[in-house]
């Protein structure tokens, strides 16, 4: 079985890792990739990390991206454009609470539109 993937983009690699461990308690199978911190693991984001996370999270059913603060959004948008992939979508939702909902929904086998819709409805 394949699932919609989830990517966690945070300025802090600790936030990204923490959200992943929180979700992994509950959802085991959904691809869940993190892109936290800069290339040097300082506070910030890295397009290369985001691109790698998107590629790893993509099982063909699409990928939903969560980010923390504004500048992560710009990097995420660039990474999506450069990936050339369809079905990779950035969502405006709280990174911790939103990604938790998304992972649960994705784990039920929902498609990208449904997962995104459920997340949107939750906030």
């Amino acid at each position, binding site marked *: 079985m394949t699932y919609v993937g989830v990517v966690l983009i945070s300025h802090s690699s600790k936030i990204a890792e923490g959200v992943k461990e929180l979700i992994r308690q509950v959802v085991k199978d959904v691809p869940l990739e993190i892109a936290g911190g800069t290339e040097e693991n*300082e506070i*910030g*984001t890295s*397009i290369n990390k985001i691109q790698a996370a998107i590629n790893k999270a993509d099982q063909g059913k699409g990928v939903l991206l969560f980010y923390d603060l504004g500048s992560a959004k*710009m990097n995420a948008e*660039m990474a999506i454009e450069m990936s050339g992939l369809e079905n990779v979508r950035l969502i405006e939702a709280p990174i911790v609470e939103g990604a938790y909902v998304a992972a649960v929904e994705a784990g039920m086998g929902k498609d990208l539109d449904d997962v995104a819709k459920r997340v949107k409805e939750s906030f």
Partner: protein
Amino acid sequence: MEINAMQAVQWIEKANEKFQENREYLTSLDRPIGDGDHGLNMSRGFKEAVKKLKAGNYSTPSDVFKDVAMTLISKVGGASGPLFGTAFLKMSVATAGQQVLNETAFVKGLEAALDGIKQRGKATTGEKTMVDVWQPVVAWLKDNGFATASLLVEAEKAMNTTKDMTATKGRAAYFKEKSAGHIDAGATSSYYLFAALAEVLGGK
């Protein structure tokens, strides 16, 4: 005025010098209404860009801009990475294939860069960002050509207009009214970028 690949490289080298010299200053601008990393971001990005350019062999400004773009995009880490990265990427696309850019061609490239920044940042003028330098400076260049001394004056004037503005984009926007009274960090780096251009074109 004409600009070739070698001058494009010099532009980036001069800009890099300015970002290294003013690293602390840029960071100090980003501290009261931001996260205090702008100097670090710009100096890291341009240092890597210069390193990349040193290793390359360029026949068009477009190719120079492309490598600068890719380096800034992957090395900067903050908002200025995708913003300046997009600017140089659009400049590269808009000037592709031309060994030498005349004024018209170069202005076209700069206009494309400005559009790229605005699109990427979903920003317009008056929001206390680098757009407040790019937009008036590009407009001025289009109307007046590359008179280098005046270019410097225009860029500096534009940079200073950000001081009284209230930020509505970027991290400074969190500070709302309290963001007024500080010059924007990204506007200042944009000023250095145009200052570097003026120096290269002015033969300094």
